[in-house]
C-alpha cells in the first residue's frame, strides 16, 4: 500500500485542499463570530451546523454522480474548472501584491457584519449562509482536486485538517483570524490549482506529459515563477 502511495499526486492534493479550505473557513468564521457576538452563540452555532448539514447533503448528492462520467471527460472538465478557479485567485493575489487591489481585511469585515446585524432575527440565516457559501468552495476544491485522480480521501483529509484548525483557533481566540496571511495563501493555492488544472486538461486530452505525474511539480514551479515575475511588472504598469 505504502509503495503505491503516489506522493507526486497526493502531497500537492492535500496541500491544495488544506490551503484553499483554510482561506474559506477563515472567511466563514468571521461571519459566524459576528453573529455570535451580536445575537448569541446558540443562534450562530445552530446556523453554522445547519449549513454543514446542507453541504453534506450537497456532497452526498453530487459526489457519487461523478462516477458515471467518463474518466477522460471528467479530467478535462475538472481541469478547465480548476484552471479558471486557480487563475482567478492567482490574478487577484498578484494584483493585491502589486498594490492594485486592496487586501482582504477580516477585521473590517467583522466590524461591518457586526454593525449590519444589530439585534434582529437574521443571525441564524446569516450564519447558515456564510457556511454554505464558503463551504461550497471547499466542496468544489475537494471534489476538483480529488475526483480526477482518485484522490478524494487525501483531499478530504486536507480540508478536514483546515476546518479543525480554524474551528480550534476560533474557539480559542473568539475573534477573526486577522493574522492569517490570506493573500499569500491565495497566491499559493492559485499556483497549485492552476498547475493541477493544466495537468488534468492535458490528461483528459491525451497529451503526453514528460516525466508523467511529476509534470505537476514542474507546472507548479512554472506558475510560481511567472506569478512572482508578474508582481513587479504590475507595480510598474500602475498609472
Amino acid at each position: 500500500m505504502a509503495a503505491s502511495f503516489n506522493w507526486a499526486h497526493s502531497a500537492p492534493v492535500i496541500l491544495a485542499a488544506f490551503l484553499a479550505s483554510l482561506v474559506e473557513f477563515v472567511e466563514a468564521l468571521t461571519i459566524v463570530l459576528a453573529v455570535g457576538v451580536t445575537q448569541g452563540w446558540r443562534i450562530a452555532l445552530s446556523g453554522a451546523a445547519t449549513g454543514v448539514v446542507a453541504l453534506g447533503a450537497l456532497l452526498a448528492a453530487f459526489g457519487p454522480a461523478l462516477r458515471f462520467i467518463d474518466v477522460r471527460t471528467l479530467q478535462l472538465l475538472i481541469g478547465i474548472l480548476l484552471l479558471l478557479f486557480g487563475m482567478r485567485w492567482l490574478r487577484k493575489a498578484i494584483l493585491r501584491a502589486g498594490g492594485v487591489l486592496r487586501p482582504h481585511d477580516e477585521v473590517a469585515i467583522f466590524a461591518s457584519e457586526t454593525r449590519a446585524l444589530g439585534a434582529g432575527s437574521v443571525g441564524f440565516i446569516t450564519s447558515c449562509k456564510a457556511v454554505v457559501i464558503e463551504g461550497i468552495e471547499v466542496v468544489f476544491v475537494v471534489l476538483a482536486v480529488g475526483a480526477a485522480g482518485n484522490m478524494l480521501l487525501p483531499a478530504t483529509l486536507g480540508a478536514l485538517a483546515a476546518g479543525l484548525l480554524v474551528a480550534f483557533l476560533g474557539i480559542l481566540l473568539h475573534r477573526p483570524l486577522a493574522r492569517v496571511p490570506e493573500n499569500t495563501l491565495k497566491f499559493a493555492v492559485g499556483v497549485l490549482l492552476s498547475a493541477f488544472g493544466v495537468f488534468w486538461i492535458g490528461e483528459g486530452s491525451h497529451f503526453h506529459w514528460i516525466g508523467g505525474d511529476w509534470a505537476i511539480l514542474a507546472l507548479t514551479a512554472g506558475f510560481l515563477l511567472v506569478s512572482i515575475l508578474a508582481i513587479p511588472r504590475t507595480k510598474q504598469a500602475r498609472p
Partner: protein
Amino acid sequence: MTWIRRIAREFWGLFVDDGSFAVAILVWIGVCVFLFKSVLPAEWSGPVLFVGVAAVLVENVRRSARR
C-alpha cells in the same frame, strides 16, 4: 429565493470575475485541445498550453494595473 440566487451568483463567481480573462483562458484551452493537438507532437501540447495561459495571466494583470 434571494439567497439561492446569491449562491448561484457566488458559484459563478468562483470561476469568473473578469469576463475577458476567463474567455481568453477558455479560447486558449480550445486552441490547444482541438487545434494544436493534431498539429504538434504529443509532448509539446502540455507546455504550449502552460505558456499560453501564463501569457494570458501576465497580460491581464498588466492591463488591470493600467486601468
